[in-house]
């Protein structure tokens, strides 16, 4: 326990965080890229066509990992927002704020691929059912957090205001997830289960899981990369940040 808190404090100190993530982030990006490539190859070229949807179902390998990722990003953001508000930990503020744009990206991809998939399957790009509407609201929440954070001058105050909003918005996450079972929607119900047997063929399940793993790793890679920039901006008055700014050649990292 003691070593854990010690480790947390060490990792939580800005220069250390900066150094550790500098080492971590490229490897994470690389791993995510390779795993994702493998998953895509499997999903596009190896997995068989669906008997109902033929090849259109292959959108699932993008749509579903991104959808999970968007929800995960929101939860990650809200947890960090809570820590930031209660204990005023700088790193948590930054992690919360940098997961918002990444989550927004994944949510936007979910919406886009969902509509693209909806056109051949449902005959329309968009309907106003509960799943789709709540997912749109999720995107708005991400955008709201980003907008609020960018609109306030003082970085720490901005982070705390946006963190507050992120916490209030967490009620939407269960709504997105359970919307298919609470209301009767056009969108299909859950087929993949962590516990118990999934209602999906394993030849289709594996690429799905690979891509889910890849997007999660990517998420952390991206959040770390963004956090380093924000940290540098926030700690611009400190010695270590200035050393880095001086040591960095223009245009290189």
């Amino acid at each position, binding site marked *: 326990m003691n070593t854990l808190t010690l480790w947390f404090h060490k990792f939580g100190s800005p220069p250390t965080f900066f150094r550790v993530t500098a080492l971590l982030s490229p490897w994470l990006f690389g791993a995510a890229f390779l795993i994702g490539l493998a998953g895509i190859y499997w999903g596009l070229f190896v997995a068989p066509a669906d008997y109902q949807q033929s090849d259109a179902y292959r959108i699932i390998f993008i749509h579903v990992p991104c959808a999970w990722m968007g929800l995960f990003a929101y939860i990650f953001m809200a947890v960090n927002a809570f820590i930031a508000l209660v204990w005023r930990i700088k790193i948590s503020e930054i992690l919360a704020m940098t997961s918002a744009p990444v989550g927004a990206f994944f949510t936007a991809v979910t919406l886009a691929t969902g509509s693209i998939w909806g056109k051949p399957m449902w005959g329309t790009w968009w309907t106003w059912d509960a799943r789709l509407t709540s997912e749109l609201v999720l995107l708005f929440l991400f955008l709201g957090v980003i907008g609020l954070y960018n609109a306030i001058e*003082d*970085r720490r105050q901005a982070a705390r205001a946006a963190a507050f909003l992120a916490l209030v918005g967490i009620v939407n996450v269960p709504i997105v997830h359970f919307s298919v079972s609470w209301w009767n929607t056009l969108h299909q119900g859950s087929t993949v289960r962590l516990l118990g047997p999934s209602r999906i063929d394993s030849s289709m399940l594996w690429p799905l899981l690979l891509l889910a793993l890849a997007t999660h790793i990517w998420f952390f890679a991206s959040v770390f990369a963004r956090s380093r920039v924000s940290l540098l901006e*926030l*700690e*611009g*008055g*400190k010695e270590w940040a200035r050393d880095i700014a001086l040591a960095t050649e223009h245009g290189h990292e």
Partner: protein
Amino acid sequence: MISSDPPSPIPLLQAEELAYARNDEPVFGPLDFTLNAGEVVLVEGDNGSGKTTLLKVLSGLLVPNSGKILLNGEDLTLARLSHQVALLSHLGGLKLDLTALENLRFAIGVFGLRSGAAPLPALASVALEGYEDVPVRNLSAGQKKRVALARLLLVPAALWLLDEPYANLDKSGIDLVNRLLDSHARRGGAALVTSHGAYAFTSGTPRRLPLRPTP
């Protein structure tokens, strides 16, 4: 600075190692000072040295990065404010659509009323008789300042934080501020006043708190 007076029980305001930084750029350095009842201190410093910021920190509107503020010996936080502090800021804190009198009445409602004070005499003592019922919007720059000063006379705060009270005032207005400060001190109040030395206290030499921008 003050050497031979009897040790007062608890100073009204006490700042220990107080420092404020904006986005990690220090605005004013670690400051230590005490303010006793009956004292008026002039905060001095060039443009941009952090006077306004200091007053906001002391009122609780900004959270200091390090150090402590003790008011009557107790920690000051925005969540636990007392009736002790009144701030006169650049903004004035006046509703332009209300008359001078209505503005004062609102202040009394929210902050309480000093014993023996009343809105009309307060307006008279800042030389605004006859302007009680004029919307503040239609007052000139100096007249607005006077209304804001009248508010200080009404609320039961012992500590006044005044940001450039002399600006925009004419000579009689400057005298007025000095008289108000004097009588406030004599009543046992204290005040922290920012001002650019050129025009300042007439009566005696007040204590000075120099602010130098931390580079």
